[in-house]
């Protein structure tokens, strides 16, 4: 199952402001709902998101149970160098979803 969609421009000029968009498939179970038998469904959300550019962290976010399923984040950065932009989503269950995109800066 594919777990994430990321959008990064493939090329940019040095110093240009670029928009990065990232969406991960996740239920974002709040921990406040009950199942058919009345048992509480344990909380299972993505609690942290980190984006690195050429190894350096450029954006991170802390997420909470009120955030909808399949969280979508968009942010901007300045294109500095050609390299890999890496995305990580950290789940309550210890899982880490990852995605990468490459950018060529001229």
């Amino acid at each position, binding site marked *: *199952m*594919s*777990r*994430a*969609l990321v*959008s990064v421009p493939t090329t940019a000029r040095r110093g240009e402001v670029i928009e990065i*968009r990232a*969406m991960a*498939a996740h239920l*974002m179970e709040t921990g406040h709902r009950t199942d058919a038998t009345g048992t509480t469904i344990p909380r299972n959300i993505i609690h942290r998101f980190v984006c690195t550019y050429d190894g350096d962290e450029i954006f991170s976010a802390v997420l909470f149970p009120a955030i*909808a*399923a*399949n969280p*979508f984040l968009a942010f901007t950065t300045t294109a500095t160098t050609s390299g890999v932009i890496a995305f990580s989503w950290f789940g309550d269950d210890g899982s880490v979803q990852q995605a990468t995109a490459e950018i060529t800066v001229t």
Partner: protein
Amino acid sequence: MAFVLALVLALPCAGEAAAADRRSGSDFMAPETRAMQADDMSNPAMLWVADGEQSWHRPEGAAGRACATCHGDATRSMRGVAARYPAFAEATGRPVDLSGRINLCRRTHQPAPPFASESRELLALTAYVAYQSRGMPIAPPQDPRLDPFRANGGALYERRIGQLDLSCAACHDARWGQQLGGSVIPQAHPTAYPLYRLEWQSVGSLQRRLRNCMVGVRAEPYAFGAPELVDLELFLMGRAGGMALETPGVRP
């Protein structure tokens, strides 16, 4: 097309939008929601389409066949297919919707156990197949064997049900464009299924939407896969004939 027009003209209801005034549900949405549907990188339903693409190539069942083994490249072989569904299935002697066709195919050709109704796997594969017809006009089959089922769907559309004693037509023909609570009532043209509904936080089928409406008028909803729901789907797709398919859509 003439047949569809005849069908539309033959309907006895007063408020039914004329063919030229038909509007997709996306026309009634906020600009933000429309933008979300239009951009494949913001449209959450694309996560399901991507899953469906993987599923298309995965061998399954006793014969170890994938969808791609017989159907090849979906971007070519499945183009326009969703626009023609529901269609008549020889095996069952009645109409079958796209999800039903996928499960029939699984049972007979792979052979593998059918996916559960409304399961993520089935929605993903259906969304992937329907996505191949995005932008194409809905083309209801002219098969005369479908006529009695389409007529039954039309009768169900007109029939008042539930404690609120409402029919589909009472809202979607007579009062489209007006408000029901905070929501605008659309014309009930199923142009974008399966679609991502923000309220569901998930992709869902037209049957799920129909069942939602039935619960809304406090009627007992038909079970997933019930012949009545397929007949309704058949009638609605005929009513939307010629409109562009938007799958995978986003709705509020």
